[in-house]
């Protein structure tokens, strides 16, 4: 017996049984796990978290995801969740129309920082001010990833991009907008939080924020918002494995994580 266990098989012997996939852990609402986003990108993790929450809360037959335009748009035709594709920046208005026309739906926008904070800033601000019963998810990596790494309204000071080659400086480019902080200051917002997906712990904490935001929408308490800091090693011009640390040192140093507002919290 012992001899048998310790027997070393010659390497050219094929295994007795072919390898097979036991579970690819793809969430129920994601059709195809494989995607064309860059290695090290944080957006698929964020996307997965949102879809997991919708499924786990039993909202598969009520949810409508409204997509902005960015790298993450690649998921718009890859979900088994209903999807409404918006123009760049316009997702909060579309989600408003969806929710007002069908109040039983759960409307969730997926937008990047270029989409939400640059092109469509007034959309999300007004939706929050109206207390629109929708959830907006901001995937914030501080660059236009899809165009190849250009400065957005959330790019931090000193961050190098293709159109701020020496790093963003306040004199030439002004200051980054801290979206969650802006929205938390509006009366209509009920839940505002900022997470990240650069560590396992942050992924877990961020998922709880998404759960809470959706819960706030279900209860009709007002506008809910989760900003998720995502890695973009390609757009940051750094090595893939350096991205999680870079996120902590640069992006998160300005866009600090945490729950900024929660009307359900005990006072």
């Amino acid at each position, binding site marked *: 017996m012992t001899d048998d266990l310790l027997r070393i098989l010659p390497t050219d012997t094929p295994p007795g049984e072919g390898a097979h996939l036991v579970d690819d852990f793809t969430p129920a609402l994601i059709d195809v796990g494989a995607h064309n986003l860059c290695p090290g990108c944080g957006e698929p993790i964020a996307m997965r978290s949102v879809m997991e929450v919708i499924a786990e809360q039993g909202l598969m*037959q009520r949810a409508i995801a409204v997509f902005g335009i960015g790298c993450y748009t690649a998921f*718009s035709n890859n979900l*088994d969740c209903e999807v409404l594709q*918006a123009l760049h920046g316009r997702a909060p*208005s579309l989600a408003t129309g969806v*929710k007002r026309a*069908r109040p039983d*739906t759960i409307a969730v926008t997926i937008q990047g920082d270029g989409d939400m904070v640059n092109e469509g800033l007034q959309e999300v601000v007004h939706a929050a001010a109206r207390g629109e019963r929708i959830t907006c998810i901001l995937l914030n990596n501080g660059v236009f990833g899809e165009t190849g790494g250009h400065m957005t309204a959330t790019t931090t000071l000193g961050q190098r991009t293709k159109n701020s080659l020496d790093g963003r400086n306040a004199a030439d480019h002004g200051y980054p907008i801290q979206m969650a902080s802006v929205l938390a200051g509006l009366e209509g917002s009920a839940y505002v939080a900022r997470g990240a997906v650069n560590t396992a712990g942050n992924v877990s904490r961020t998922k709880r924020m998404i759960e809470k935001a959706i819960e706030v929408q279900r209860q009709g308490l007002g506008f809910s918002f989760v900003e998720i800091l995502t890695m973009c090693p390609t757009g940051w011009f750094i090595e893939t494995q350096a991205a999680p640390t870079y996120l902590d040192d640069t992006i998160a140093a300005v866009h600090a994580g945490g729950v900024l507002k929660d009307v359900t919290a005990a006072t």
Partner: protein
Amino acid sequence: MAPRLMEGSEAVAEAMVAAGCRFFAGYPMTPFTEVLEGMAKKLPPVGGVCMNAESELEAVGMAWGAAATGTRSATGSTGQGLALMQESISELSLARLPMVIVHMARSQAEYWQATRGGHGDQRRIVLAPMDVAEAAELAQLAFHLADRWRNPVILYGDYYIAHTYQSVDIEPIDFGPLPENTWALTGATGGSGGARLVSPLGDLKQRDDVGYDLADYYHRVLAHQAEMIASVEPMVETGHLNGAEVVVVAFGTPGKFVRYVVNQLREEGVPVGYVRPITLFPFPSDAVRAAAGTARVVGVYENSAGQMIEDVRLSVLGASPVEAIGGLTLDGSGFGIGPDITVPEIRARILRLCESAGCLPAGVTR
């Protein structure tokens, strides 16, 4: 319901509600504002929603979201405001969503915007009523055509139609059956293996292993558009074309003035007829060409420097000379009541055209 005296904007609002419109979003701008007021008043009692959007960009976006859920949805504005909405209007054609867009224009200088505005190859049906009663009918037809072709439809009104009071009887009009809705988002298809997707970037899912081919999608939308353009019968009103040596083409409110003047001149023996396009797109080219075939000259009366005249020329194809007899006419505010849009002024212009064409009977005075 008995006929009731109503301002045009209110009549259009009431007609939209009668047509089943249950979502409206708008931003105030003269002369569109009263349509928004009408919808804000009339939608809540029937369970509909009227949103006071923070801009035209948001108005069309909200209407887009509601339209995607299969709700009859509309927005509107006037020239500048519609320019702000233009990106969305173009992409709505690609997303294949029905929507009615009420364009209460400040003049007729928005003809190109309405019939040609926006990026891409896609076109929209444009309906141009001449008065309040016709606006109320066409507002209902607009929803039917939008649903039939899954494409926005533009209702081209003006300051006069928006603010004139007329006695109208508004009842729901049955335009016949529509294709079954198999595309609207309700949330209910999630997790079914076939969750719906409404997108200007295509309607195919990755799971079907079809790859991503936007060019292919654009070609399919264009094929659908070609079918729409070929199938929609252009609407047009003509009068006194028999023996007409001068034909006047005009649309909208000026079209009604021209019709009145031509009727009057015919009684006086002047050989003049008129063509009033009701669909600006598809343009009633056949009717214009037929009318021009026997005429010495075609006059085009527009409250603009001349925009529809290009479509008239494209229709006539050189068979007769085509001359502009209109021109931009506005009050001091830059819109409102055009001082030139009067019966005597239009009569004088048509008679000048007759005179130059050599067909002004003796004894007829301007």
